[in-house]
């Protein structure tokens, strides 16, 4: 069976994605920094699903290593999912250039670096799927989260163009825009229950959307309506708002 490559496999969402793909029979490459810390997850998935799980060392901000990383995978993956993400508080990012740079490098530059390589390969093979985890924060810049949001906006635009380019080669590209997700990253935040998704539900949503060849999904789906409204607030009003 084919392999799916999960980039940034350490978080809760990646863990659930790995479980969902394994449950449906896919072998996995789990790529992350200090990949050996994922031994427990590898064991978990092997007991649950009996698929093959390979841990591979990967640093999304070490752009120069990406070509070698990809070509040394023992078998070409059928699909690639970019889950890697970095978010810090807006206040921290706007006062610390290194944090801003890290936000851009993880969420945008690094994702492009590896996906350029993947896309060229998939285009040549005329086969494969790409999933990018972007964010609702990329739909409109807000004062509370615009540095992270602008990196995700760039990533969403990239995925849109990539989808357009790869359409003819039969390679699908899915943009995922999660709203609030109950993960370790958001543990300290007081999130509204009805708008907050569980990572296992997000993973199921992504798997289904990818299998159906969808283009863009929001998860929970109610975020599509919320963002539709937010996007349509006129700028002269929006600039005065605090949301």
């Amino acid at each position: 069976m084919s392999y799916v490559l999960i980039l940034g496999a350490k978080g809760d969402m990646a863990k659930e994605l790995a479980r969902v793909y394994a449950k449906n029979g896919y072998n996995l490459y789990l790529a992350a920094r200090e990949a050996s810390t994922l031994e427990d997850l590898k064991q978990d998935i092997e007991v649950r699903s009996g698929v093959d799980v390979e841990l591979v060392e990967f640093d999304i901000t070490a752009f120069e290593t990406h070509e070698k990383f990809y070509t040394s995978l023992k078998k070409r993956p059928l699909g690639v999912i970019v889950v890697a993400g970095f978010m810090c508080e807006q206040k921290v990012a706007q006062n610390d250039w290194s944090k801003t740079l890290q936000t851009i490098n993880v969420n945008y530059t690094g994702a492009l670096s590896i996906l350029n390589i993947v896309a060229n390969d998939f285009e040549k093979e005329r086969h494969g799927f790409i999933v990018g985890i972007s964010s609702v924060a990329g739909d409109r810049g807000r004062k509370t989260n615009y540095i992270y949001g602008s990196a995700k906006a760039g990533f969403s635009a990239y995925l849109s163009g990539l989808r357009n380019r790869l359409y003819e080669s039969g390679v699908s590209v899915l943009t995922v825009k999660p709203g609030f997700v109950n993960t370790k990253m958001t543990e300290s935040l007081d999130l509204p229950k009805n708008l907050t998704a569980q990572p296992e539900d997000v993973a199921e949503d992504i798997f289904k959307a990818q299998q159906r060849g969808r283009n863009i999904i929001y998860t929970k789906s109610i975020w599509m309506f919320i963002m539709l409204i937010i996007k349509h607030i006129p700028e002269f009003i929006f600039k005065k708002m605090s949301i």
Partner: protein
Amino acid sequence: MSLLSWGMFPNIQNKIFTLRDEKSLSSYIKETDEFIPYGNGRSYGDSALNDNIIYAKPYNNFLSFDDKKGILHAQAGVLLSEILEAFVSRGWFLKVTPGTKLITLGGAIASDVHGKNHHVEGCFSECVEEFTIMGVDGKIKSCKRGDELFLATCGGMGLTGVILSAKISLKKINSKNINQTTIKTKNLKETFEAFENNKEKPYSVAWIDCLAKDKDIGKCLLMVGDFADDGNLEYKSKKKLTIPFNFPSFALNTLSVKAFNYLYYAKAKDGISKQKVDIDTFFYPLDAIGDWNKIYGSGGFTQYQFILPKEQSYKGLKEILTKISASGKGSFLAVLKLYGKENKNYLSFPLEGYSLALDFKIERGLFELLDALDEVVIRHGGRIYLTKDVRVSKETFEKGYPQIEKFRAYRKEHKMDKKLNSLQSKRVQI
């Protein structure tokens, strides 16, 4: 974000610690004055609620599986549904499962849950080989069958520590299907006879019409079954419907209850009918509707579940069903079941006899009705199920559980009584 129980009552605020690793749990336990573990929030009342909650569901790795002996080793946050997803297709099933698969392994042990085969296989603890648990000193202990910690923890409502992992034995099956026979009865006498006549069947449960009056009291649909032998093991959890918001409370009036009951009656028109149904339909009918608890409205609901010793069951049940029927507080769901022998665990619910479980919307006058039912239960030597309870008094609880003093002494001896508490444990002073 606060965590509520399945009954959405009481609606309280709490602080959540998410269990991800043993080290941070150990420090949390040492630093925190009082707390209670919480799994997937499927206990109905206040048994997993307090100001500080240890949310254990994310602690959910599978650790190993011995496919010769059928023994699974997993962390306590694993859901039973995940075990089924992993193992039904390989020909394994849970030895004991309750009516929902959406509970954690740790929760199953803490409530010592039981299912439709209690009269044959007993409680969940029967399939637990051993487990690890973190005590109030922040240290991990392993526990085997026969240890006092085992007797106190299985059914101990999370009051002896935080269960971390367990080894459980699974049972071999040759099909994902169950051959089910549905038997219609006219009254309580017939219902009891039907249970007795089907005692050798591995799975049985009855749906009772709680609105029936007079001579019809106790009329039911008894469903018995056993796994088929057709070799079909293709299993995937069904897509679930979801109820997106709390229903307005008037949605659950007598009419809707009657309509619901009517549907169940249409199923066995000729007295007895046979069906082949799959695991989800047979064991977990309500799991097909996600968040069905919202149907009771935002005020919440509770489930009243009691058990009476066999020789007292007929008299006691008749009295209770008469009281419920007269109260007009109809229950959406009423489940009757014949149980097998009691086990030795200090606080496990089952004993040999009949248990009835019914849902009630939280409303004025309800607790008075339930107090009156308690009196009948105690008079007939029965007890109330803590996993469902949100309001039972200390006196009623104590009368039902003769081993409570052993449990209290054990908690005191190991200094659990100050740190490990739920709202329920404080109410009934466990």
